[in-house]
């Protein structure tokens, strides 16, 4: 049988249209007039300082942020009328934090990615099982399938979570800070995986702090600042010293990545210091 995930995926355009998010009791909106589109087959990265609204943006997709204006569109269709289950069939999200709870076998844990597509009863279908195995292979963690989730290292845990999102078999994949706590090798591996997943045709939205890696891997970058889009476009449009210095409020220079020649950011010592 053909492995279910091996066919090229056709992504869906994920568009944020004039999004405004305001939490109760906060004076300022967490997001305002945020408009951009993540296109199929590309990695779209959302970057910005702490508190710039990156997580609120992801929370709009989880329906856990109060959206008071604007729409989120999937292929020009508003997601607001979709219930949680229907949305999970189209958009998979690797959330920023997830504490391992009561232990499951990795196989069972990744099978939970099929939840939105399965009935309440009945064993998983052959399609479900094949998809779980395929997802684990793609995430590079297939050998962990018969381990329990409480035995995984930090890097393995992230990969197993990505595998669970892949098992959702969606057109759109969203990853919120997937490389926090990972060392360089594991971080690079995750970025390469994200790149490969987009090249298969999916729409990938990546929220990240790693500007230099984003510059190498993302085709489209959206820079948020205080809840607004400060800059958006390809790497050369966003990775500019005067823009980043203003947004991050820290002296820095933008040079060239010696390996691949894309712009790279180099933060300087604090104001008034020499090195």
């Amino acid at each position, binding site marked *: 049988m053909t*492995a279910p995930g091996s066919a090229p995926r056709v992504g869906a355009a994920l568009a944020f249209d004039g999004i405004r998010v305001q939490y109760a009791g906060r004076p300022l909106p967490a997001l305002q007039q945020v408009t951009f589109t993540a296109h199929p087959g590309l990695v779209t990265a959302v970057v910005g300082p702490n508190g710039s609204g990156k997580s609120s943006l992801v929370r709009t997709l*989880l*329906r*856990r942020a109060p959206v008071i204006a604007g729409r989120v569109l999937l292929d020009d269709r508003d997601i607001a009328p979709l*219930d*949680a*289950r*229907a*949305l*999970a*069939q189209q958009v*998979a*999200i*690797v*959330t*920023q*934090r*997830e*504490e391992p*709870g*009561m*232990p*499951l*076998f990795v*196989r*069972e844990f990744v099978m*939970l*990615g099929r*939840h*939105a597509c*399965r009935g*309440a*009863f009945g*064993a998983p279908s052959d399609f479900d*099982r094949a998809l779980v*195995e*395929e997802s684990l*292979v793609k995430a590079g963690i*297939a050998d962990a*399938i*018969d381990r329990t989730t409480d035995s995984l290292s930090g890097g393995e845990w992230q990969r197993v*979570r990505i595998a*669970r*999102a892949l098992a*959702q078999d969606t057109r759109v994949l969203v990853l919120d800070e997937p490389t926090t706590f990972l060392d360089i090798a594991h971080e690079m591996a995750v970025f390469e995986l994200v790149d490969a997943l987009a090249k298969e045709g999916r729409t990938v939205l990546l929220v990240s702090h790693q500007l230099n890696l984003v510059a190498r891997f993302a085709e489209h970058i959206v820079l948020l600042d205080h809840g607004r889009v400060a800059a958006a476009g390809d790497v050369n449009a966003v990775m500019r010293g005067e823009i980043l210095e203003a947004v991050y409020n820290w002296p820095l220079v933008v040079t060239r990545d010696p390996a691949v020649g894309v712009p790279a950011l180099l933060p300087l010592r604090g104001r008034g210091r020499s090195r």
Partner: protein
Amino acid sequence: MTVAPRTSAAPRGAWPWILGLALLVGVSVFAIAFGAVSLPLGTVTDALRGVGDPANVSIVRELRLPRVLLAALVGAGLAMSGGALQGTMRNPLAEPYLLGVSGGAAVGAVMAMAFGVQVPAVITACAFAGAAVATLVVTALARVVGGSGDTRLLLMAGVVVGAFANAAILVALADAPPERLRGALWWMMGSAADASWGSVGRSAAALLLLGTVLVWRARELDVLALGSEPAAALGVDVDRASRHIFLVSSWLAAATVAAAGLVGFVGLVVPNLARAFGARQHRPMLLLSALYGAVLLVAADLLARTVRAPAELPLGAVTALVGVPFFLSQLRKVAP
């Protein structure tokens, strides 16, 4: 790509089920045979079929069998309720008694009786209402105190609501004649002594109905147990599903309270035991919990009425003696 061997959704092997069933049958037979009048096994089986000394038939059929069945049903209900609450709250210390919902149910039932209600079904309905109110109060308290997420606050709120419930029962029964004061103790410490075929029937109906709902939603519980954001990402309407499961679990506990008063810690100990037996996913875990909950409570009731015979210990005292040390040992594990 290599295909790894399949592991079924059932816990490792069938031995926990076989052991549980054997224990249930064994302890039930013991419980029917032992008591103020101890009967040999042959007499018990005859009496179950209605053969032999009418006194023995009456003891077995009208006193001991309903009592054993009621204890089994109450244990199963409490264990399933605790298992589901632990899943939605991601906290292995959650259970209906510690969350105050059992206390709320008891207040509902006692208030109904204080107003002169005699019909058992109406008393049960009032217990359901009391449990629902306690659920609302506990979740609202926890939300006011610290956002909606922290289940430790929920447990604290539960203990406080439980204490309030006990106080309310004492107040409601304070001016009652001395024999009714025993009634207060009955509600607060639990007992299967008032078992009748009617209470067995009501408990069985509640367990069948509400237990089925929980088993049916077990996969949602698996997802909810991952935490609210991951669960939302996987397609569960988290707030709604948690609310429903919380309410169904509370009602399951309320049905046991209406039948046997407050019996704590069964819902705490048994689901953790089922997990230790390898039932990781909620469907097998809930079913295995029902089995071992039944075993535990039939055994506890047997102890309650034989250890200090002819005096009877409160059932809740026996389960607390087992449960509190267990709670403390678990507390060490979940401490940050």
